[in-house]
């Protein structure tokens, strides 16, 4: 039985050390083994029970028994490293999975020494194996929890970061999740090279950010919304919340943890909403002004023109009882003239308020009339071209189209100093398109827009937008102005209703 027997037949002095060794191994829950490389026989200490659940006497004393229990996936790697150690090394250090008594795989840590003869030939290995399954499981659990944490942070923010804080207060970016580059365009290294994350904060937001950074060094957490400038030069809004980590021993903040969310879209929506609200306010103000001006004008017109003419008519008729013959005829024809004149004035007044034609006859006749009347009043020639207008549209669409052309032509007369204008109106599938163009003085649309919602332009725009359409004013100083509008002919709500009715078989 060779070596194994030798191992058992020990001298008393050696037995003591054996005993100590056994106890130490038991305390460690370690298996101690020895393999005779020439015979492949193995000795397993009682620690085998702690590692795999077997008592040594239950198993064949062969290294082959052990090798075959190693997880098939780990076997080649273990064999290779073991061979390497035998070929020229002194020791080996392995981690692998091995089948235990219950039929599960246990994780073990196996370290051993190679014993050589005088010629340097490896003859034995002596090693120790510990069960590290619990540690492995703990590691797995830790990895899993880290993964969960990472997923959660990805779900709740666009990226998270940690910074180390130097004694002098400078914060260095330690780590950031991949979202960092998605949002900012920079890698963390690039940012560090540029002088830290403060380098991409928008200049306007910089003073506030620096102040906040100083306050968080005293240990206060918080959140803020700032603009940053990305690598491609875009401005984006981010919302960052952070917690400083206070080190009691050093009496200062040593680290910052933060989560960042890209809120550019939200900010955009907010500012759009605000702009709408402002525009709405400006428009309703203007609506009231226009209404008041219109009423003032009407009142004056009624008083000056109509009431005066009626008074004159009254005087004329008052005289008739005393008149006879030719004088009576003259006076009556004079009265007739006054009535005719009055009729014209009242009709003009009513047309200016709203051309009855638009309601009675539709858009095309009203536009023809508008163009003719416009030329007669302003001497600006209008080339009116149209296509597909031989039908009626929804009243809102007809009114909007009419008012847009009217407003655009009014602007031409007022500002363009042009001798002619072109009005094109056409139907493109379900969209009514308008284009009013002149080759006059033009203007700088930006200057006009920045001057606030000027009635004419924004009024036209509002009409188009209210119908779900759009309107563009293009103007080049010295080259002319072009107003283009697109109005959907069909009413979406109405379409939906019709669809529902059709579906219900009504």
């Amino acid at each position, binding site marked *: 039985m060779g070596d194994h027997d030798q191992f058992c037949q020990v001298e008393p002095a050696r037995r003591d050390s054996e005993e100590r060794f056994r106890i130490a191994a038991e305390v460690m829950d370690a298996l101690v083994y020895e393999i005779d490389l020439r015979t492949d026989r193995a000795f397993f200490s009682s620690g085998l029970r702690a590692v795999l659940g077997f008592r040594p006497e239950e198993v064949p004393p062969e290294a082959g028994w052990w090798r075959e229990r190693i997880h098939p996936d780990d076997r080649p790697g273990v064999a290779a490293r073991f061979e390497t150690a035998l070929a020229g090394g002194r020791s080996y250090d392995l981690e692998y999975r091995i089948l235990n008594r219950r039929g599960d795989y246990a994780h073990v840590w196996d370290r051993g020494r190679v014993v050589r003869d005088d010629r340097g030939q490896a003859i034995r290995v002596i090693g120790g194996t510990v069960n590290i399954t619990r540690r492995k499981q703990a590691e797995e659990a830790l990895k899993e929890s880290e993964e969960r944490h990472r997923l959660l942070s990805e779900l709740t923010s666009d990226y998270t970061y940690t910074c180390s804080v130097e004694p002098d207060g400078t914060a260095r970016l330690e780590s950031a999740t991949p979202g960092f580059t998605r949002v900012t365009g920079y890698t963390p290294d690039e940012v560090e090279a540029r002088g830290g994350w403060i380098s991409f904060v928008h200049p306007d937001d910089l003073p506030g950010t620096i102040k906040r950074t100083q306050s968080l060094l005293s240990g206060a957490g918080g959140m803020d919304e700032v603009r940053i400038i990305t690598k491609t030069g875009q401005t984006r809004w981010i919302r960052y919340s952070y917690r400083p980590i206070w080190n009691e021993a050093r009496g200062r903040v040593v680290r910052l943890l933060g989560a960042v969310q890209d809120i550019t879209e939200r900010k955009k929506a907010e500012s759009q909403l605000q702009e709408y609200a402002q525009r709405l306010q400006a428009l309703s103000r203007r609506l009231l002004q226009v209404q008041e001006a219109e009423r003032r004008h009407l009142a004056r017109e009624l008083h000056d023109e109509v009431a005066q003419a009626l008074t004159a008519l009254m005087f004329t008729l008052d005289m008739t009882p005393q008149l006879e013959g030719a004088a009576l005829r003259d006076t009556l024809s004079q009265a007739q003239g006054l009535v*005719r004149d009055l*009729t014209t004035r009242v*009709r003009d007044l009513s047309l200016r308020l709203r051309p*009855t*034609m638009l309601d*009675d*006859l539709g858009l*095309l*006749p*009203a536009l*023809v*009339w508008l*163009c*003719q009347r416009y030329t007669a009043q302003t001497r600006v020639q209008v080339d*009116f*071209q*149209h*296509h*597909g*207008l*031989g039908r009626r549209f929804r009243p809102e669409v007809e009114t909007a189209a009419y008012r847009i052309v009217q407003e655009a032509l009014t602007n031409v007369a007022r500002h363009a100093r042009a001798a002619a204008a072109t009005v*094109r109106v*056409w139907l*493109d599938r379900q969209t009514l*398109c308008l*284009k009013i163009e002149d080759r006059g003085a033009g203007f700088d649309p930006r200057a006009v827009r920045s001057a606030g919602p000027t009635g004419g332009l924004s009024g036209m725009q509002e009409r188009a937008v209210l119908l779900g359409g759009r309107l*563009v004013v*293009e103007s*080049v100083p010295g080259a002319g102005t*072009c107003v*283009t509008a697109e109005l959907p002919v069909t009413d979406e709500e109405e379409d939906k209703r019709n669809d529902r009715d059709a579906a219900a078989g009504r």
Partner: protein
Amino acid sequence: MTVTLLLADDHQIVRQGLRAILKAVTDFRLVGEAADGPEAVRLVERLQPDVLVLDLMLPGLNGLEVTRHVARRFPRTRIVILSMHSNEAYVVEALRAGATGYVLKESGAEDLVQAIRQAALGRRYLSPSISETALGAYVQMTESTPLDPYQTLTFREREVLQLTAEGHSAAEIAERLFISRRTVETHRANLMRKLGVRNQKELTRYAVQRGILIKEG
């Protein structure tokens, strides 16, 4: 020859005045009066008058609708429109709907009598103050004109067309015009739809045909 008449006007006082005028004409016989559009149509059907004297602005069914309806279903009944609108648009639309005469309310009784006599004979009659030239001009203006698709483009769309035809990419155009690439792509999609071209090749061909792009070589 007696002319049978039906009178349709929603104003009692106007009907009263008209009745007085028409009764004074010996060869006219007033067979009925209507106060709204549907009643006018019903009475035409029942009484089959020679001439319907019709107010253009009638409640229920406006005068133009009544005219269209009567002209189609009872072509033997001629229609004389009575209107306060001297505007060509109304005159032309009334004639298009099938009216034979058009008389302004402000012109005298003689004018109306004249219009009825002419209409009974199937002859067109318009109040003297209505200008035939103006009618002609109006008719011309309402005629649909074939639109040049190029003229339907905005300034911006023309710029994008030109640059695209010259072979610039959307990114290059965006940079040159100081707009976003997406805006360029929207402009390009819109202008291609308006011009009816489907791809870059057709767009370039269009640009060459229009003389926007001078063909090289």
